[in-house]
């Protein structure tokens, strides 16, 4: 009997000892939910530890039951400690997100100057956006992202930086949008199709506020938006995203034209990985929006590929292909303010079909520590067919090549120079069928005069010839300085020139827009020039409070604007002189560090058509953006408020007798828009996932960004993302 008892006790002891250890396992991912390999995972004060594998998974076995802190660290990332993990079972699963240390130290890198610089070393105002904001705000198209950027104004789908543009139905742009530094605008209209920007593959967005013609040429007279795409994931990475939403009913019963809920949805699938030296990313997306207005629907399909081949540590080749097919209703103006969500009579079935293909090839070669070269080639084919009473069509093929050399003569002196050539052929029944040749040659030098003072200066020469028009020559110099008065107070100043050649659509458009109004060509249209000055400061009051302020002024000569002629037609003309002056202030305050952030930006802008002694059209004098965000893993939330003062000048001739083309079109108000969003990060098994809900225009405030076009009413979006 004693032997039996002893045996039972021994057995129990063995069973107990077998169950007294457990495993801590899980996954480590980055802020964008891509897996992190090689993360050091250990329990301080013990010998227990491990490292994450290719897909971010880790496990530490045979740990005695107990309560432990587990530390996660990886070079370049902020250390994370999971405290008081109570191990009382065979396995515990934990998941961790590591954030880049660069974000903490604010060492934000910007390459819009055609080489990588620290943002704090720049001589012009710059905003850098990180991709997290896209999920947080449930953004489906890049232009919606720009609506939250200080100093940037979206009028419908047209972007303006510090008042550089009014509204011209997409014809011409004064802001150069580039993907990885390769310009991305169409050959005929010079417009940007925001839906083609690969939101799912954005590493960061750099916004240069001020003319950059000295580096980028004609289109950059108002600034640059440079979208940097991600390098392909080192490990298998797939992202699935879907969203669905609906517009609320209109504020007034007489605006309610459809009893159904007007909905929108989208799907995207992105896959990224490496095979030996080849990195690849593939993505497909679909968007469908019924719209809150009649005949304002769209259906869009995009396909995106980025391939990167590493020949060696000093040379690599990137290929980016981006395709869009879209079909959409062509809503131009409301019928009148009593029928604010219906198009004008006769325009109920107008639609536009578009096909666009953008290809870019970038070859980087580092010849030595002091010399690097880059070749950028691109091809952009755009085609649209407008189906209305008049059939309109245009196909444009734009070829572009640029060779960039970066010379590092010493730690203090750097020279960036380049040569650019582009050719565009347009075939259209409304823009004629012109061809367009552009060449440019530029050089910019940066010199660290002292440890605290950086000087830069440069110039660009351009020759552009648009079909039968006389060729245009332009030299655009600029100079700037950045002076670090103390570690926390940085002064910057720059002066620069810009120029812009009219696009084929601005010169040659000859088409009816309805109501007996025609757009007519203006072969005498000449290029516009500008002289800009900016001075600003960056002040870090404390680690959690940061102020950026700037004064800016731009003088334009021969500014190109659409105008109603005395014959009652619309024609692009040169305004002799225009001037824009302004003040911009941005405050970033982490009022509860790591948890609550407040961002306030205010822009005062005074724009004048000097000849007519009037304000320039569609430029609000006061703009205020406010954001409060909360971030405490796994929860995220935010509230945004946007205010524009009432736009002082619009196209009066379109809304007043005799034409009265847009009835009640002079109805406009200040803009007050409030959006809220909330999100939750979680794991499905070991797969990171997130869900966000956003409510936009929560007070259902009725406003217009452009005459006769009511902006979206209150709408709600629910999104879901899965990473594996």
């Amino acid at each position, binding site marked *: 009997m004693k032997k039996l008892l002893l045996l039972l006790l021994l057995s129990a002891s063995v069973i107990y000892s077998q169950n007294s250890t457990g495993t801590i396992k899980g996954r480590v991912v980055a802020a964008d939910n891509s897996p992190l390999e090689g993360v050091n995972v250990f329990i301080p004060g013990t010998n227990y530890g491990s490292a994450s594998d290719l897909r971010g998974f880790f496990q530490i076995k045979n740990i005695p039951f107990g309560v432990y802190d587990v530390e996660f660290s990886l070079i370049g990332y902020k250390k994370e400690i999971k405290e008081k993990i109570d191990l009382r079972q065979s396995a515990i699963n934990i998941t961790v997100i590591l954030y880049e240390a660069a974000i903490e130290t604010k060492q934000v890198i910007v390459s819009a100057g055609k080489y990588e610089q620290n943002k704090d070393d720049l001589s012009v105002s710059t905003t850098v956006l990180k991709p997290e904001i896209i999920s947080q705000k449930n953004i489906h198209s890049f232009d919606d992202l720009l609506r939250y950027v200080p100093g940037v104004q979206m009028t419908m789908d047209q972007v303006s930086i510090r008042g550089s543009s009014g509204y011209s139905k997409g014809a011409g742009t004064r802001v150069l949008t580039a993907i990885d530094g390769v310009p991305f605008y169409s050959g005929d209209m010079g417009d940007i199709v925001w839906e083609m920007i690969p939101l799912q593959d954005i590493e960061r967005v750099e916004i240069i506020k001020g003319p950059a013609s000295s580096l980028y040429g004609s289109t950059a007279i108002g600034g640059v938006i440079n979208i940097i795409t991600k390098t392909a994931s080192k490990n298998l990475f797939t992202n699935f995203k879907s969203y669905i939403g609906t517009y609320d009913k209109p504020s007034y019963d007489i605006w309610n034209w459809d009893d159904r809920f007007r909905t929108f949805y989208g799907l995207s699938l992105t896959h990224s990985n490496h095979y030996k030296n080849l990195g690849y990313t593939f993505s497909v997306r679909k968007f469908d929006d019924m719209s809150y207005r009649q005949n304002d629907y769209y259906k869009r399909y995009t396909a995106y590929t980025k391939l990167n081949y590493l020949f060696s540590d000093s040379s690599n080749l990137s290929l980016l292909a981006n395709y869009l097919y879209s079909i959409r209703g062509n809503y131009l103006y409301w019928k009148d303010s009593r029928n604010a969500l219906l198009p004008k009579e006769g325009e109920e079935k107008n639609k536009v079909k578009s096909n666009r293909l953008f290809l870019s090839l970038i070859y980087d070669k580092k010849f030595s520590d002091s010399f690097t070269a880059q070749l950028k080639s691109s091809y952009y084919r755009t085609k649209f067919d407008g189906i209305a009473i008049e059939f309109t069509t245009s196909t444009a093929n734009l070829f572009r090549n640029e060779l960039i050399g970066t010379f590092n003569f010493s730690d203090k002196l750097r020279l960036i120079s380049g040569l650019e050539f582009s050719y565009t052929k347009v075939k259209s029944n409304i823009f004629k069928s012109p061809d367009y040749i552009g060449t440019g040659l530029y050089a910019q030098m940066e010199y660290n005069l002292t440890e605290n003072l950086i000087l830069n200066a440069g110039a660009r020469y351009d020759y552009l010839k648009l079909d039968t028009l006389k060729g245009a020559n332009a030299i655009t110099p600029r100079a700037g300085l950045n002076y670090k008065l103390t570690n926390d107070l940085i002064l910057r100043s720059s002066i620069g020139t810009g120029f812009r050649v009219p696009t084929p659509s601005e010169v040659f458009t000859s088409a009816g827009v309805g109501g007996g109004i025609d757009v007519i060509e203006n072969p005498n249209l000449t290029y516009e020039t500008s002289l800009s000055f900016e001075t600003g400061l960056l002040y870090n009051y404390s680690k959690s409070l940061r102020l950026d302020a700037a004064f800016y002024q731009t003088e334009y000569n021969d500014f190109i604007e659409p105008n109603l002629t005395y014959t009652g037609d619309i024609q692009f003309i040169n305004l002799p002189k225009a001037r824009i002056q302004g003040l911009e202030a941005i405050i970033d305050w982490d009022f509860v560090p790591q948890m609550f952030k407040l961002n306030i930006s205010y822009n005062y802008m005074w724009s004048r058509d000097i000849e007519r002694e009037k304000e320039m059209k569609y430029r609000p004098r006061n703009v205020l953006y406010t954001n409060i965000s909360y971030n405490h893993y796994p929860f995220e939330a935010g509230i945004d408020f946007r205010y524009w003062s009432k736009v002082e000048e619009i196209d009066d001739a379109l809304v007043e007798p005799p034409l009265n083309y847009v009835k009640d079109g002079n109805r406009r108000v200040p803009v*007050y828009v409030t959006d809220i969003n909330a999100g939750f990060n979680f794991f499905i098994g070991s797969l990171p996932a997130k869900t966000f809900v956003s409510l936009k225009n929560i007070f259902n405030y009725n406003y217009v960004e452009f005459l006769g076009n*009511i902006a979206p009413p209150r709408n709600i979006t629910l999104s879901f993302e899965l990473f594996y």
Partner: protein
Amino acid sequence: MKKIILTVSIILLLLINGCDKGIEPADEITTPTGFKGKVTFSENWNNNIKRTHLVVFKKPINKDEDFFPPNLTFVIDSIPKGTSQFNYNSLENNYIESFSIGQGEYSYVVVAQSNSPELSLLRKDWVVIGVYCENGDQTKPKKLIIDAGKISENINIDVNFNNPPPQPPGGM
């Protein structure tokens, strides 16, 4: 505490501003808007005249381009040569279909003649022969005031070919 007050203040500011509904639909207007009256001619017509129109301008004419749209707001049908009295109504005698006149104040209403057979858009092709004015004083143009949903009546102009009014800038 200060942080909370600031946060609450900002949220309140958003709420207060957001309570306004913004753009509202215009009131429904069921009756037409316009003007009517008569043009009376004294003395003999010039045989070379090809066109005679009553025209409405938003603002006074200070330079050549003010003579045309968008300052030129409305054009009444061409008045037949030799007419001694012409009764018109803006709803029935709108010469340019794409033009419409609405509620507002219009500073300069005149009768003008042209020797051009087509509707010319050159200032030099036109001469003003009568002005809507105060007490017959053609040097003092009277404002045409139109209210929404109403027809302004008695917008009468007397034309004396032998006593033309002062000409606005430009012209022949």
